[in-house]
């Protein structure tokens, strides 16, 4: 179906300070269609039924969302300001009264997130230079490879390849590396944190692959 899950490199300082941190990725063919097929939309509807207010209220006590909340705190993010991805999805579901389909790729990422609690992001694999890694940005290093790319403050934790930072940790990919209509291959990745079993990360990546395969 596709290549096996790849474990990315993690900077030694990050490994020493943040136990259990890791990055895993999977290369997948880009979906041929933008719109989600009926089966995927029905899957979203079924997940929306599971995610009601009562579930949202106790979500942060569940082991995987809790692990991401703790990790957010450890890296200086306030999870009540910058929501952990599964809480953001739960809030969106409550506000809109359901999970809206936003295209096959976005839906596949959402389904994997809600099924496992593990957030995923996608990059255009053909714009990457080498395997993904987690590291600290150097002073003034640019986010992305465009000429007008914004400079990062030194010490930010970033997802990078051999060519430089591609996205801030838990942030959107830099322009030029995001998935577009022209994308042929996807690099879907997950950031693992302490307290999240490896199996959940693998399952999230495969759930995404399976949903994309349905398209």
């Amino acid at each position, binding site marked *: 179906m596709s290549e096996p899950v790849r474990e990315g490199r993690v900077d030694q*300082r*990050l490994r*020493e*300070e*943040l136990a259990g941190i890791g990055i895993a990725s999977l290369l997948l063919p880009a979906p041929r269609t933008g719109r989600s097929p009926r089966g995927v939309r029905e899957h979203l509807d079924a997940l929306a039924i599971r995610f009601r207010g009562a579930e949202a*209220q*106790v979500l*942060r*006590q569940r082991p995987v969302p*809790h692990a991401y*909340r*703790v990790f957010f*705190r*450890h*890296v*200086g*993010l*306030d999870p*009540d*300001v910058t929501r952990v991805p599964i809480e953001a999805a739960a809030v969106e579901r409550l506000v809109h009264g359901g999970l809206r389909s936003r295209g096959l790729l976005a839906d596949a990422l959402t389904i994997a997130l809600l099924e496992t609690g593990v957030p995923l992001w996608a990059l255009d694999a053909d714009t990457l230079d080498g395997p993904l890694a987690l590291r*600290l940005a150097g002073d003034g290093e640019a986010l992305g490879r465009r000429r007008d790319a914004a400079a990062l*403050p030194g*010490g*930010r*934790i970033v997802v990078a390849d051999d060519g430089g930072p591609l996205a*801030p*940790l*838990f*942030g959107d990919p830099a322009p030029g590396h995001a998935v577009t209509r022209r994308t042929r291959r996807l690099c879907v990745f997950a950031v693992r944190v302490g307290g999240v079993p490896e199996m959940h990360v693998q399952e999230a990546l495969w759930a995404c692959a399976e949903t994309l395969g349905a398209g």
Partner: protein
Amino acid sequence: MPAIAQRPDLALAAAEVDEAAARRTLRAQVARLEAQLARLAAQASPRDGIDWATGRRGGPRLLGVGELERLRDDLAERVHEVRGVLAARAEREAHQRDLLERMLRDPARHRFARVAQADIGEPGCGVWQVRPRLGLIGMLMGWWQVKVSSGCPLAEGR
């Protein structure tokens, strides 16, 4: 110790080890406080008006001992505040439940007293109110009863 005092490189290494251990301890404390906040969040209601945010800004980075200490202190303070808010609500609700019991036992002594379901921590919009039976006649005759209003008002068009 004297050997370390004469070797600045060893003293620096020892200090780094101490700091790394301190950061680990602080991260474990932050994790425990986050777990306590999560338990409290499950008991809280939007009506409590609790502000959960610690107001921290900035991107993902490695925090030093000072920042971790401030984070730990902020979270501990937040846990303390939230417990206070929840305890005050529990006390208010207990008082209202007590009032409701007295209203039901002796309506005449609690004329026009009113307790909403929300006041005792129950979901819904129902209200218990002491009202006279048969209106003015009941008021004159001292016929008092507890009436339960039914549910939430119907949604109205905008």
